């Protein structure tokens, strides 16, 4: 009886009316949020709350438009992009090498893991003073911060991916008497593509945050700097506009990496690596290996 109820529930979840009601909930939620926002904004206008703390939505739209047509925005976007890309590439390459090293030796893994876990679970922003001392407060320290942010998710997923490579593939390689480099090139690397891309996706998202936060603390350019300047000048609508644009850029980067990962998944043999599934379950389905 209960089983029949479950089957009926599952049938009800897959129909067009169900999808319509889900979409209706989404639309109603968005409308309710906009209405609530406007009520709070109006309370500011009539003097119940601080004026301008919550600007009207159309002011934010206008500010977004003004940002998109200003040359300064693209200059700051370029600085943030450069810091992000350099940091991400340097941090990821180092992490992939260290991850492979850890994955190929249980001794190295056991020796390094406690220290990497310790630093990996620490807020990386706390290392900014060291980076400022080493690289100055210019663009270099933000690149270093980006590299530091990218390093940890990539190293953890790479090491885990290495440890979870299908043992049959490794035995096949040994049966053919492959040397260490051939094993890396022919067995480990193809099997590692999926977990490495998972790590890169996480690393890319965390690098964006790392770079922007570093810019907020000390910088003379970049989107984080722009956000900080608007806050200091109490220009609230442009401040919201920058936050909206940063969220949009971060979401677009995340979607791009997810699509790349899906594409790779489709081309990968299912037995090549079991890393992704294990990692997803280890993180409780949230797809995180280390926080930042």
């Amino acid at each position, binding site marked *: 009886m209960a089983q029949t109820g479950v089957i009926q529930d599952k049938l009800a979840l897959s129909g067009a009316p*169900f999808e319509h009601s889900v*979409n209706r909930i989404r639309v109603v939620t968005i409308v309710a949020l906009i209405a609530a926002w406007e009520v709070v904004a109006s309370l500011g206008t009539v003097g119940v709350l601080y004026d301008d703390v919550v600007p009207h939505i159309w002011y934010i739209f206008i500010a977004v438009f003004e940002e998109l047509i200003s040359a300064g925005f693209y200059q700051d976007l370029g600085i943030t992009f450069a810091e992000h890309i350099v940091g991400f590439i340097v941090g990821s390459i180092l992490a992939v090498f260290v991850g492979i090293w850890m994955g190929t030796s249980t001794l190295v893994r056991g020796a390094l*893991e*406690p*220290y990497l876990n*310790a*630093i990996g679970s620490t807020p990386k922003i706390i290392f900014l003073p060291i980076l400022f001392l080493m690289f100055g407060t210019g663009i270099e320290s933000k690149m270093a911060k980006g590299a530091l942010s990218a390093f940890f998710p990539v190293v953890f997923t790479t090491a885990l991916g290495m440890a979870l490579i299908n043992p049959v593939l490794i035995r096949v390689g040994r049966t053919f008497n492959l040397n260490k480099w051939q094993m890396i090139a022919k067995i480990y690397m193809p099997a590692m593509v999926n977990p490495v891309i998972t790590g890169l996706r996480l690393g890319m998202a965390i690098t964006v*945050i790392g770079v922007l936060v570093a810019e907020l603390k000390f910088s003379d350019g970049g989107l*984080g700097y722009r956000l900080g300047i608007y806050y200091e000048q109490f220009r609230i609508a442009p*401040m919201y506009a920058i936050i909206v644009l940063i969220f949009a850029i971060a979401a677009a980067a995340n979607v791009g990496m997810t699509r790349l990962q899906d594409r790779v998944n489709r081309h990968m043999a299912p037995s090549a690596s079991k890393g992704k599934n294990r990692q997803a379950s280890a993180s409780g389905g949230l797809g995180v290996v280390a926080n930042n």
Partner: protein
Amino acid sequence: MTKIYKMPVVVGLFGFLVCAMLLELAVGYGYVMHLVVPRPSDTIIAFPEVQADMDLIGNFFVTLGMTAAATALALLIGIPFGYFLYRNTRYGIAYEGWLAAAFAAPTVLLYPLFLVIFGRSHATLIAMGFIPGAIPIIIQTRQGLLGVSQTLQNVGRSFNVSERDMFWKILLPSAVPTIFTGIRIGVMYTLVNIVAIEYLIDFGGLGRIVSEMYFRFDTPGTYASIIAVIFVSVLFYWGFGRVEKWLRPV
């Protein structure tokens, strides 16, 4: 029997000590500027000074208090909301994508917004800790409840248990390990965000000490306070990891 030099922990500790000694010599002989990297011995000596000057332990409890307050708020809202999304399938499906996107979003950048609303106060720290803490708790509560075995629920129904008993005696105990994963991730994100905001706005506990030491150009003190933050993070990570292992069935 494993030889001692083949034990990973011993090798790791030995490597760490060798690196510390090399750094000590490099700074001592002037190969590395002591203004950029202090001698490890100076960093160790700086701990009591930082404690006397900045009350390291007291500020640890300030950060801990903020983290606890934000986590409590996240639990208070996150678990009932996760349960609501579980009970109302349509709402669950409607919001699951949004929650996942919010979890990946750089929420730390919202701090100027809360500074404008609450000012440079503890409320800003709690609000900034609450946001990243609540999202994984909501997601994992729903996931945990959705993952409860249908057989267990059928057994409950066959005994005609009330909805209340079904929740307290079947659903919640089965979902606890998954929910706790959400709580662990939430607490870590809360701690990270709170320390980050403390550092950025020079207010609150441990994060403020790091910022203060840097501004004083007290390099050993800066390193000592950074190590203190690492210890706190490790303590949290390790403690919650142990509890999670205890809760998760083998």
